[in-house]
């Protein structure tokens, strides 16, 4: 085998490997990598008590309430099919709104209530002034949430 044909076969091999790599990435991206579970997935899976996990979904409209101790808040995380009741002790992030995305990290206690040690608000990629949001909502073009 001369140097030229050897170089060619090397390049072919590299191309092949890169092709395999791209194919594997595409195959992997078909099923999403899970950063958090939706309530429906959780109900199907029934994770063991005390298992640490993340639950993500929307905060159900009208579900938020502050308990009597003044720091524990209780709300329902929903994915419009199933629901999970969650509690959190401490300050909620600014962006925590009913109807908006939220990710809680914690575990289930024995009453099947999700005790979130950490609540992270996930906000969408839409940025607009309040008046525009209001106008859009009036026209029914876009359904977002109001400030509570």
């Amino acid at each position, binding site marked *: 085998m001369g140097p030229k044909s050897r170089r060619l076969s090397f390049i072919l091999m590299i191309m092949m*490997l*890169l092709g395999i790599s791209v194919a594997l*990435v595409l195959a*992997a991206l078909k*099923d999403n*990598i899970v950063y958090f579970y939706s309530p429906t997935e959780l109900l199907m899976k029934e994770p063991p008590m005390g298992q640490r*996990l993340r639950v993500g979904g929307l905060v159900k409209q009208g579900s938020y309430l502050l308990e009597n101790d003044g720091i524990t808040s209780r709300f329902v995380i929903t994915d419009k099919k199933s629901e999970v009741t969650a509690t959190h002790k401490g300050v909620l992030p600014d962006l925590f709104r009913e109807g908006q995305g939220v990710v809680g990290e914690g575990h289930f206690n024995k009453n099947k209530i999700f005790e979130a040690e950490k609540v992270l608000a996930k906000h969408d990629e839409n940025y607009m002034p309040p008046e525009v949001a209001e106008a859009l909502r009036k026209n029914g073009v876009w359904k977002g949430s109001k400030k509570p």
Partner: protein
Amino acid sequence: MIRAFKSTIHRELILLYRRGSDLCLTVIFFLLVAILFPLALGPDQGLLAQIGPGVIWVSALLSSMLTIDRIFYADFEDGSLEQFVLSTHPFGIFVFAKLSAHWLTSGLPILIFSPVIGIFYSIPLASYPVLILSIALGTPALSLIGGVSAALSLGARRGGVLLPLLALPLLVPVLIFGTAATNAAILGTPVTPSLLLLGAVLAATLAVAPPITTITIKQAIN
């Protein structure tokens, strides 16, 4: 060409065997790092099972970095690399052989001893196949990417500090996907995406890393 490849692997293995301590060093370091965590964090079984995969991967990464700087440096010092370049076979063959030898002497022992750490961390038995598969896919990538960094820092003024700085950011994907696969196996979520991505990282580094290492070493001894 295959003969040259075999001879080089043979040479590396003999050298390592004669030097003796190096092979044990990797394994001992790997076990030591992994054992430090329970000592520091306390014997909480739940917590240990949770951090187990991560600890195994961090220890694997550190112990393979421990030996990677030696694969080219000794030969660089005593002029062997020049002789490799001047041999009639393409230099890439030797680079690839050296990287393979490094995997055989650091990746393989880690692969063998990782179930031991798994027992220490009470990782459920059912997830061992995924753990071992992920380490089998990940450690070659560690050697390959480590090789690029070792070549880049060859003969640098502060090579010892430079090598981790170059290697660790490049190794982060291996660490993430490796840990994610094992964690997913423990939690019972799908493991295939992480394993596929790990495979993708391995295929890509297999394609890209040896040529880059070859070019870098050639310009280092220029």
